[in-house]
């Protein structure tokens, strides 16, 4: 019985995805492209939401714990890369950092002609970040800030335990806030200075608390990559490289631990969403209206940023409180959140790739050409202006695939925590609703034409 149901589910899940695909591919109007939408937007968005809902219903047919575990535990170990490779990685990281800061100051002032801008926003934030969840987290080795910090002596002061992951939450929110409101994506000098400041802060933190503590618990960038690395198929362990299914490690106990870390996961999802949201026409109209009644633009941005974050955290906690009620359990909300939060990492990864794929492919030729002669790049570095239409379809597919994996991770978490199989299904009501809502929001952001956020002065690459 269970096996048959599993087979049906396995066949039906891609079918539902495929069935929704043509509509999505047609409806895609990415980043200001002028292709007409053939179905009403609300229908396109609810289809995305419906697909996620359907994947929950399909997952609910799988109630065999042993089968679920066998999926997540699938994997084997590969030999670990040697020390030489590690040293090579550190040197590459340092070289890229030095080149980025150097060219940032010495290269041309135009953003799209400066290697620093291209390396950071296209190579690193677009391409490299994708590698941390598609392949594996190589940041602990490459991280040039860590290499610099490890050269310095450390006081090894004990890290205050009560702070937990909160400083990394604040740090992440602050970093993305700076990224959104400052012309960091246009001004190479400012970018180089910011990277310098970041190096100084992480070096100072490492001197006080030690590199492992700083980059393991406080540094927001390292923590984001560590989370994405949990989704990735390859992971460095003591025995070597372990290979697992994407997202398999997110079903492990301890993937996220503590209240602050669950909020950090929500923050990762939120900041990428906000970054996209400020580029929508709706936001442009909203902030214009707010500024017209006399609110300073930056205060408007900050207010919306914090309120949005509050809403995301509240929605997540509401979902977890439903899990507690419908799951008929005494497990604390924090303990439930620890197991449900990792599912959001899959969504964040899917959204990140959807948000950046077209952009990276379009600007990648610029990166190559400018890297060849960083000090005297061509006046107009080449860009791919017309990407094939299926790229847009692929981006939307990534949003949905991220959600499918997330639904599955939440399903697995519920079955690990709750003894009753029906209770385990019911405990996912809240998180499924939140995911459906988020699918609709993120599909809307990804497909709505991008406009320059008003009042900020910068336009992005």
């Amino acid at each position, binding site marked *: 019985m269970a096996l048959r149901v599993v087979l049906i589910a396995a066949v039906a899940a891609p079918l*539902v995805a495929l069935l929704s695909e043509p509509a999505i591919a047609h409806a895609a109007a990415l980043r200001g492209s002028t292709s007409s939408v053939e179905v009403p937007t609300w*229908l396109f968005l609810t289809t995305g939401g419906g697909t996620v809902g359907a994947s929950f219903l399909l997952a609910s047919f799988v109630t065999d714990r042993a089968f679920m575990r066998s999926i997540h535990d699938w994997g084997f170990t590969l030999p670990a890369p040697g020390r030489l490779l590690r040293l090579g990685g550190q040197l590459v990281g340092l070289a890229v950092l030095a080149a980025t800061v150097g060219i940032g100051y010495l290269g041309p002032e135009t953003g799209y002609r400066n290697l620093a801008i291209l390396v950071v926003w296209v190579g690193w934030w677009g391409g490299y970040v994708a590698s941390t969840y598609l392949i594996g987290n190589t940041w602990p080795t490459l991280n040039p800030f860590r290499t610099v910090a490890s050269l310095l002596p450390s006081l090894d002061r004990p890290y205050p335990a009560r702070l937990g992951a909160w400083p990394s939450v604040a740090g992440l929110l602050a970093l993305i806030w700076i990224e959104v409101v400052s012309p960091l994506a246009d001004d190479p000098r400012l970018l180089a200075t910011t990277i310098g400041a970041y190096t100084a802060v992480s070096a100072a933190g490492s001197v006080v608390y030690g590199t492992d503590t700083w980059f393991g618990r406080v540094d927001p960038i390292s923590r984001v990559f560590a989370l994405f690395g949990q989704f990735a198929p390859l992971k460095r362990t003591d025995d070597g490289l372990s290979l697992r299914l994407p997202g398999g490690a997110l079903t492990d106990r301890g993937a996220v631990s503590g209240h602050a870390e669950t909020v950090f996961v929500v923050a990762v999802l939120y900041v990428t969403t906000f970054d996209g949201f400020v580029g929508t026409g709706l936001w442009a109209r909203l902030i214009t209206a707010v500024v017209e009644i006399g609110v300073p633009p930056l205060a408007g941005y900050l207010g919306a940023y914090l309120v949005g974050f509050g809403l995301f955290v509240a929605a997540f906690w509401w979902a977890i409180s439903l899990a507690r009620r419908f799951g008929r359990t005494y497990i604390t909300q924090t303990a439930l959140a620890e197991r449900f939060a990792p599912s959001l990492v899959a969504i964040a990864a899917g959204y990140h790739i959807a948000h950046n794929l077209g952009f990276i492919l379009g600007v990648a030729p610029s990166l190559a050409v400018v890297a060849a002669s960083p000090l005297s790049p061509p006046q107009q570095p080449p860009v791919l202006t017309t990407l094939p239409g299926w790229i847009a379809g692929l981006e939307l597919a990534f949003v949905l695939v991220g959600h499918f994996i997330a639904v599955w991770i939440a399903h697995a978490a519920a079955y690990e925590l709750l003894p009753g199989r029906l209770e385990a299904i019911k405990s996912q009501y809240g998180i499924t609703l939140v995911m459906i809502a988020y699918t609709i929001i993120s599909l809307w952001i990804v497909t709505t034409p991008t406009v320059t956020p008003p009042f900020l002065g910068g336009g992005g690459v």
Partner: protein
Amino acid sequence: MSTGRAGDDSEAQNSSDTSHTQATAELRPETHVPDGENPRQCPHCGFELPADDQFRLHLGLNHYDKLDDADQQAFRDAYQQEEAALTRFRIIALGGLVVLYFGFLLIYALLAT
């Protein structure tokens, strides 16, 4: 909040059982019982559960070898009863899928021209 009771029982048991129970106990998530509720506490790992069937299921799923025949039978009964409830849920879920699928199909047929 119930912590620290982990594995008390298992020490009385034979040694091969000990590691298993302690492992489950360590993995046990934290609980909080609201005022005015009467939880059942698992005698093997101290985990608190509400209704009777949840308690039976927990015992059977986590400590099956340590149960006596009556408790094992109670677990099997609870599991069977759950099966019936699950079947009902699956029919509803299937209905939901059908509604979703044909609902969207109809809307697309009407609107997407």
